[in-house]
């Protein structure tokens, strides 16, 4: 009795595999230099506007003397009091937001920017601006990924 050969099911046309080498470099450049991923993909206008928004947000945060989240925040305050879970989550989230700004955050670390977390609405806005700059850069990275994988023009 003749049997039919087994043919693997075809992938849906909308889910084309894009190699990592296509999307990883623009995403990494976009993380390190806000807007850089868009420039690499020749989306100059969008890259310029995103770079403007992220850099201005970060610089305003620095000029308002916002605090950055650093490693000693994670476990103890002054080496004595243990932090509760909510504070740890806020600190880790803030640290991720800071690091997402790429070279901007790295430069603050290299130039030893170390603003203590003090009371006052201007400092508080500054801290939020520094984190928000990183979060905006994450949105830009998602956009770069979608452009690189041809899910978006």
């Amino acid at each position, binding site marked *: 009795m003749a049997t039919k050969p087994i043919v693997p099911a075809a992938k849906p046309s909308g889910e084309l595999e894009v190699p990592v080498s296509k999307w990883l470099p623009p995403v990494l450049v976009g993380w390190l230099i806000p807007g850089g991923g868009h420039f690499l993909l020749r989306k100059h206008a969008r890259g310029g*506007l*995103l770079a*403007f928004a992220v850099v201005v947000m970060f610089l305003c945060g620095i000029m*308002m003397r916002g605090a950055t989240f650093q490693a000693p925040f994670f476990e103890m305050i002054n080496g004595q009091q243990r932090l509760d879970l909510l504070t740890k989550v806020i600190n880790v989230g803030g640290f991720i937001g800071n690091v997402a700004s790429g070279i901007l955050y790295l430069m603050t670390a290299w130039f030893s920017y170390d603003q203590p977390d003090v009371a006052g*609405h*201007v400092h508080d806005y500054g801290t939020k*601006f520094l984190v928000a700059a990183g979060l905006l850069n994450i*949105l*830009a990275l998602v*956009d770069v990924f979608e452009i690189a994988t041809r899910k978006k023009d």
Partner: protein
Amino acid sequence: MPKMSLTHFEASILFALLTSIVLGIVTKKTDKERLRYGLYCFGCFVFAMFALSWLMYLGHG
């Protein structure tokens, strides 16, 4: 680095403006849609800002 001292209103407007630019760019596909959505987001931010400000003012007694 110069020091910057903004009021609540100025800082909120600045935040709304910069965030609206990014949201407009990354969420829509054509330039016209991006501009429209960016303006819409900015309007929503400003509306929420005034609404919450009045709510806090009236709630404070």
